[in-house]
């Protein structure tokens, strides 16, 4: 019986009598494959056509919808490890050196020389609008200078270790880019505030913001997208922890304060806020 089945199987794969391979003759296979070839070419054609039509409806400079980005995300530099935890020992250079290097690298495009070369000086405290006039695109769009020196003590110029060595580290905060976003209403600039989470309020100590008050100046908004505004310099805010409790975990949360940015949903811990853990060991 088993042998029979074996033969049947073999015969199904290749039947020498009828010259059939898998139940079909060569011409039959040819026909059916041709049919499917035509069928799929047609389908692929239709797919390409619809995709083409869809892509035609898109604007090069502004996405059609920004449903997900009503609350921009916030991130910090240096990122530390994956879990947004910055831990180092003041005694061990190698434990904080990488943070300083990260910041150096991150801030290099903000060098004053580079900024002067590429970007304009704008009028502060108001939006830098560069509207297109009808069909004529006003491209490329200019960007405003964000000089590294604005960050002052956290710029890495005066203190090339960003205060990490003395246990007074700088954390740089940026707001995610969203095209066309105009944060802050009535000329009031959005600003960042940091604080400790409940049980750590005692430990956080004094904070210093650069630029003062931790504001993102209005002149950096709106953003016109990477195509139109190639040299856009994202504004930054630096926070310096002046006398944070050492040798203990301190949970810190920074949030954006702007009267027209909705507080993000509870589930997204990085929309309009950012939290991280800071631990400075001295022993």
């Amino acid at each position, binding site marked *: 019986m088993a042998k029979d089945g074996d033969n049947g199987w073999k015969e199904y794969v290749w039947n020498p009598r009828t010259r059939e391979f898998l139940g079909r003759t060569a011409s039959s296979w040819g026909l059916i494959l041709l049919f499917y070839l035509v069928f799929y070419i047609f389908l692929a054609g239709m797919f390409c056509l619809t995709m083409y039509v869809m892509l035609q409806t898109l604007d090069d400079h502004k996405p059609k919808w920004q449903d*997900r980005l009503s609350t921009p995300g916030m991130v910090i530099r240096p990122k530390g490890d994956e879990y947004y935890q910055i831990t180092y020992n003041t005694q061990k250079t190698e434990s904080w050196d990488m943070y300083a290097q990260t910041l150096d690298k991150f801030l290099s495009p903000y060098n004053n020389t580079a900024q002067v070369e590429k970007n304009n000086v704008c009028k502060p405290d108001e939006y830098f609008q560069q509207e297109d006039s009808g069909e004529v695109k006003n491209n490329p769009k200019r960007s405003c200078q964000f000089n590294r020196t604005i960050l002052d003590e956290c710029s890495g110029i005066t203190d090339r270790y960003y205060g990490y060595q003395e246990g007074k580290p700088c954390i740089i905060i940026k707001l*995610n880019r969203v095209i066309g976003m105009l944060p802050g209403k009535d000329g009031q600039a959005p600003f960042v505030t940091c604080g400790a989470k409940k049980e750590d309020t005692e430990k956080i100590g004094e904070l210093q913001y650069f630029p003062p008050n931790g504001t993102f100046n209005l002149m950096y908004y709106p953003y016109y997208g990477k195509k139109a505004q190639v040299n856009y310099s994202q504004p930054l805010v630096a926070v310096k922890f002046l006398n944070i409790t050492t040798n203990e975990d301190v949970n810190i949360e920074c949030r954006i304060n702007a009267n027209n940015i909705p507080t993000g949903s509870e589930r997204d811990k990085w929309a309009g806020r950012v939290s991280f853990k800071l631990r400075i060991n001295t022993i």
Partner: protein
Amino acid sequence: MSKKDTYDMFEMDGDMEKKKKKKKVNKKEKMEGMKKEIDIDDHEITIDELEMRYNTSVTKGLTSTFAAQVFERDGPNELKPPKGTPEYVKFARQLAGGLQCLMWVAACICSIAFGIEFAKGNVNCFDNLYLAVVLIAVVVVTGCFGYYQEFKSTNIIASFKNLVPQQAVVIRDGQKNVINAYQLVVGDMVEIKGGDGIPADIRIITSQACKVDNSSLTGESEPQSRTPECTHENPLETKNIAFFSTTCMEGIATGMIISTGDRTIIGRIATLASGVGNEKTPIAIEIEHFVDIIAGLAIFFGFTFFVVAMFIGYAFLEAMIFFMAIVVAYVPEGLLATVTVCLSLTAKRLARKNCVVKNLEAVETLGSTSVICSDKTGTLTQNRMTVAHLWFDNHVHAADTTEDQSGKSFDQSSETWRSLARVATLCNRATFRPDQEGLPIPKRLVVGDASETALLKFTELSVGNVMDYRDRFKKAVEVPFNSTNKFQLSIHELDDPLDLRYLLVMKGAPERILERCSTILIKGQELPLDEQWSEAFQTAYMDLGGLGERVLGFCHLYLSEKEVPRGYRFDADEMNFPTSGLCFAGLISMIDPPRATVPGAVMKCRTAGIRVVMVTGDHPITARAIAANVGIITEGSETVEDIAQRKRIPVEQVNKRDARACVISGGQLKDMSSEELDEALRNHPEMVFARTSPQQKLIIVESCQRLGSIVAVTGDGVNDSPALKKADIGVAMGIAGSDAAKNAADMILLDDNFASIVTGVEQGRLIFDNLKKSIAYTLTKNIPELTPYLIYITCSVPLPLGCITILFIELATDIYPSVSLAYEKAESDIMNLKPRNPRRDRLVNESLAVYSYFQIGAIQSFAGFTDYFAAMAQEGWYPLVCIGLRAHWENIHFQDMQDSYGQEWTFNQRLYQQFTCYTVFFVSIEICQISDVLIRKTRRLSVFTQGFFRNKVLVSAIVFQLLLGNLLCYCPGMPNIFNFMPIRVQWWFVPVPYGILIFVYDEIRKLGVRRHPGSWWDQELYY
């Protein structure tokens, strides 16, 4: 021989039997043994031998102590209920099907993945646990559903059980006792009287006019007399054995019990029935066949992509999750539920037409039936004797035999008819039960035997008020029927008070009646009964007898006033009155007539390509007559014997192939090998089996099945139950059927109407067609569910469709539309087609799967991806950017990922975008499935011919699907519970062109199939 010796010997016999049984390890062998004819000789040996064998005495019965010993040895005298499957096993079976097992595996992988992630401290991994729970819930809920269906049908059977304990009169220690029947043992002497059930198999020792109703055992419609003489070597035929579970109709008898419990004839039949394996229904085979393929393909796909994923460089755990996801995407979770619902809908529809289906799958079996083996008595016939023909004035007159008296009557103007009717009315002891004035005459209950009942009803219908009529002719004396003189007579005063003569009326076996007659009544004239009339009588008698009818002769005589004056003291025993030289009035013949609807139904079966074979326990002549009557043997068809007679050649010289019809009796069947039987069934399209035993019915069914037929068996008696069980579908009669038959059957006809079977066949064929459509619809969407994963794995795009969403498509939105296809009307006249060939016409064939998967499914996938890429692009992620994006996209710690426009996204924003993609893909599948359900309405005809809105359920299903889709999309809270996002309205319309393409393409396909039948197009694209 001393008592003890016999006892020991018996013990040894018992032991030997036990050993023999043990040897029969092979169950099949045992079954074969059971199929052999019952082999006992208790009816042939003398009473003395019998007494010795069972160590008993005819007068005193057993001693109580010995009876107790035998009881100890044999156990109680009752039928052991067949071993049922324990409930938990039944339930477990529902959870362990092919697809269910795959789902379990998927659930396991999910939980393992969850466990590993959780152990790693990742708190965001509850999705996997969630999915595992959902998968298990799906399996359990579908299991419960199936179990409930099965449970419901078992309950129907349970309600049929009869729980009244039976009592019996037994002689033990020389004394009569009334004991419960289950305490009876072999050797007990019992007494039975009219109305009693026979408590065990009994050898009759003495009897007085004892008659038993064997119809449930042998199918004979008339009560059989029981006498102490052995009349036949076959225990079923001999008159000195009365069988367990039959009823004694009249008379009294005493007898010795020769077997009890499961060893009785009926017990053996019951064991035979429960021993016969339940054949898998064709639809079960179909579903299994295709579930195997699906499961195999799912594992194949899953494993291939597992390997591919490992090769590309995914982690083992990730690859496992891919495997799981592919299984979930590819397995049609909702399919089994859909099939069950479709079948139960049809079952409900059938129930309204008086067919109760016990086993859901049996609904379809009727549709694929190619042979119906029908019992005669009670199924094809009305199971009541009715006057069929009369012979008077040298003419045969046909009486109206329909159940509702809608037929034509004969000419009743003749004087002879009046005399004949008078004899029939007066010479009759049967009476109507009181208080039945409201009922139509044929339905009224009557006290009296079958032929007297027939005559009573006949005269009541033709003469009118019989009771009143009898009162007018006051009865002076009567001699009841007995087997020696074979006539019955009574003497009446005339209704004319001036005429003081007595009237003697007599009926009985025609030849006996004729012997006593010297004149014959022709057109009211009394003519001398000469040779010529005698011959005319003989011809008529033979003709009527040849029709399988029971013929009675009627005669009368006016007794002269001189010889028998008023007030004459008649003596019934002495018969002190003239009983010869009578005047012959006529013949009346009776038959159990076919039901009015049967010939039409048989005709319909024939046009539907179904062969109807009659298998009955009744006599060949009767069987053949009824077969001819209902069209099982068609007009002009001849048997071998007929041809031999016509050509005047010996039977052996007839070419068997010339004979369309064939009547085989049980005796002939016994000597036939199974090959010969197959040969006979193949050569003669019109078959009648008569005098068959239950075992032979089984053999006939098996033979039909060997020839590749799907066999339906209809029957009502206990004798039918093994065949009912063996058949692919057993159909029992609800009113006349015995419990055993109902238990063994898969379907019960509540109105006992054979014509209901035709409805069943039609519904069965329709559901097969519609299931095909449902399955095609259900399978199609598995491809657009599967491709997202394949693209996800190979091209690393953000996941377009999630597992939870897939489950929503499978189990929520698409269930109703797929069920609604069960309401679709037939595309063509399905009752004019041949039954499907179970080996060739599969439920799911290659072209159905290929068409659904690689054509419609492919279009749907493209629709989904178009919509997916549109949604991504319009939110800022260009199609080309998407490719290879996966690793960053799914990095929880990457909170400023740049899109094509330079905007930065957090992980959560990306996740919600991914959910948007799920929803968009879901909506695309839904839109395409609406188009799909429309095209599935027909396989060959244009949808425009079939009518868009004729299937209201389907229309409401589409509306339901859209509403549910909207609810899922726009109900608040959905994003975080079920990963559905409120999507832009525009995205609902992106897949519409593809929907239209599906519809147009399928119309083109159907057009090609219709225009060019047999062409390449037809072969490749018709499913």
